[in-house]
C-alpha cells in the first residue's frame, strides 16, 4: 500500500520533470507496478502474479545468449522486452515503446545489479543468434535417445507432460513445475531456435540447467526435434483459448519490421 502511495506521489512528476532520466521515467510508468520501484520484483501487482515478476537485483535472467550464471547481453534484454514472455503477465513492449525508450529503460534495469558493471568475458557469450552453426537435418528418433540420455524425464516426464518432480523450486524459493512440452506455451519463444537456446544456456533462476557441455550441438538440435514432435494439436475448444495473443501478434509484427 505504501508502495502504491509512493508511486502515486511521483506520478504527476513523471511526465512533468524534464530532467528525470528517460529510462527511469519509462521504468516507473511501465515496469514498476510489477517489478517494483527498486527492481526487486516486488511491485504492488506482484502478489497476484504467477510466475512472479523478475527480480532484477540478482542478475539472474531466464532467456540469454550467455553462459549459465552470466548476465544477459543488451540484445537479450531487448528481445525479452520486445517480445514479452508468452504464458506470463510480461507483455510484449515492442509496439508500445520507441527504440530510444526501450534502450533507456534497459540501462535503468541494468543499474539494479552490480554484475552488469563488468564487461562480459568472451567465454560467457556462448550463442551468437545471428551466427548459429547450421541446424542439422531433423531426427526425432535421435532426439528421443538424447531425451533418455539426459534423463529429461526426471522432471519433464517420460511423455513430456512435465510436473513430475514436485520438489522443484525457483531461485526465490517459489514452487515451480517442469514444462509441459505437449501443450505448454514456450515462454522463451515458440521457435526451434528458442528451445535450442534454452537447452544450451539453461533457464536462469530455475532448475532447468544448461546442457552446453553435456550434449553436442547436434544432440541439442535433435532434442529440439523431439520436443517439437511432442506438441499436441489443439482441440476445437482450445482454438478459443489459444487465439493469437498480444505476444504472438507483436512477434509477427516485429519480425516483419527491422528491430534494432
Amino acid at each position: 500500500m505504501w508502495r502504491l502511495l509512493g508511486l502515486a506521489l511521483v506520478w504527476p512528476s513523471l511526465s512533468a520533470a524534464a530532467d528525470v532520466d528517460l529510462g527511469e521515467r519509462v521504468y516507473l510508468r511501465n515496469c514498476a507496478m510489477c517489478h517494483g520501484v527498486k527492481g526487486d520484483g516486488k511491485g504492488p501487482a506482484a502478489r497476484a502474479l504467477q510466475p512472479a515478476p523478475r527480480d532484477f537485483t540478482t542478475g539472474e535472467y531466464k532467456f540469454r545468449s550467455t553462459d549459465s550464471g552470466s548476465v544477459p547481453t543488451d540484445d537479450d534484454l531487448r528481445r525479452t522486452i520486445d517480445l514479452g514472455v508468452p504464458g506470463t503477465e510480461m507483455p510484449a513492449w515492442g509496439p508500445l515503446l520507441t527504440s530510444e525508450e526501450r534502450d533507456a529503460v534497459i540501462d535503468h534495469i541494468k543499474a539494479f545489479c552490480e554484475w552488469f558493471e563488468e564487461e562480459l568475458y568472451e567465454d560467457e557469450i556462448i550463442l551468437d543468434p545471428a551466427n548459429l552453426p547450421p541446424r542439422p537435418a531433423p531426427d526425432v528418433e535421435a532426439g528421443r535417445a538424447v531425451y533418455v540420455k539426459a534423463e529429461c524425464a526426471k522432471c519433464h516426464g517420460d511423455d513430456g507432460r512435465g510436473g513430475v518432480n514436485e520438489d522443484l523450486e525457483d531461485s526465490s524459493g517459489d514452487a515451480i513445475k517442469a514444462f509441459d512440452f505437449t501443450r505448454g506455451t514456450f515462454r522463451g519463444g515458440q521457435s526451434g531456435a528458442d528451445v535450442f537456446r534454452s537447452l544450451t544456456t539453461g533457464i536462469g533462476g530455475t532448475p532447468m540447467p544448461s546442457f552446453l557441455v553435456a550434449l553436442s550441438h547436434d544432440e541439442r538440435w535433435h532434442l529440439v526435434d523431439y520436443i517439437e514432435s511432442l506438441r499436441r494439436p489443439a482441440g476445437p475448444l482450445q482454438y478459443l483459448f489459444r487465439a493469437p495473443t498480444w505476444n504472438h501478434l507483436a512477434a509477427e509484427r516485429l519480425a516483419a519490421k527491422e528491430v534494432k
Partner: protein
Amino acid sequence: MSPFMLLLAVATTPADAYEGLEGAGGSGVLTGKITTSQPASTEKLPVTQDGEVCGESVAAEFVLVKDGNLQNAVVFLDGIEKGAPITKSKATLDQKGCVYTPHVQAMAKGSSVSVMNSDAVMHNTHAGTSFNFGMPAGTPPTPKSMRRPGLVPVNCDAGHTWMSAYIYVFSHPYFATTGADGTYKIEGVPDGAHKLTVWHEKLGTKTVDITVEGGEVTTDIQLD
C-alpha cells in the same frame, strides 16, 4: 529534481571494495582452532531417487566434529580492503555416491572449479546464481570460473534433494577451511586491525577483532 525522486533512489549493492597490490601483503600469520561442543551429525539422509546408484541413504555432513574439532568451517578476514593480490586456484567438485566432494571449499575470485560427475546417473550441478549444468552420466569434467565473490550453495534439482555443498568465493586471499583437526592457517596478512570471521553452514558465524603486527596471531574460536 523532484524531492520525491529521493524516495526512489535505486539501491545497488556496493561494488567490491578490496584492492590487491603487489607488495601490499604482510608477514602476519593467523592460526588457531575452531571447536564446538555440538555433537557430530549422525543422521542418515534417505535416498529418494536412483537408489541403485546412490544406495539407501547417505551420511549427513552438516556438522563434522571429532574430539570437539570442527571441520568445514571457513575462516576469513571480513571486509579487508587492502592487501596482496589474489592467486587463482584450480579446484574440483565431484559428484560421487550421490554426494558432493568436497562438501565445503573456499577459493579466490576467478579461480576455476572443475565439476565432475563420477556417478552412473544424471546430476544437475546447481550452484546458486553461479551456474547450473546438467550432467548426465559420462559428462566430461566441466571447468567453470567463479568470478563473483560470495557464498555459493550447491544443490541437485534432479531429484537428489539430500545433496548439498558450499563454495565460498573471496575477493581477497585471506581465507582458510578447517580440516578434520579443526585448525586453520592464513599467511601473508598485512599489519593492522582486522575482523577475523568464521562461518559454518549450521553453527553460524562469529567475528573476533584482531590486530596483526607482523607476527603470528593465534585465535581459537568456539561455535555453539
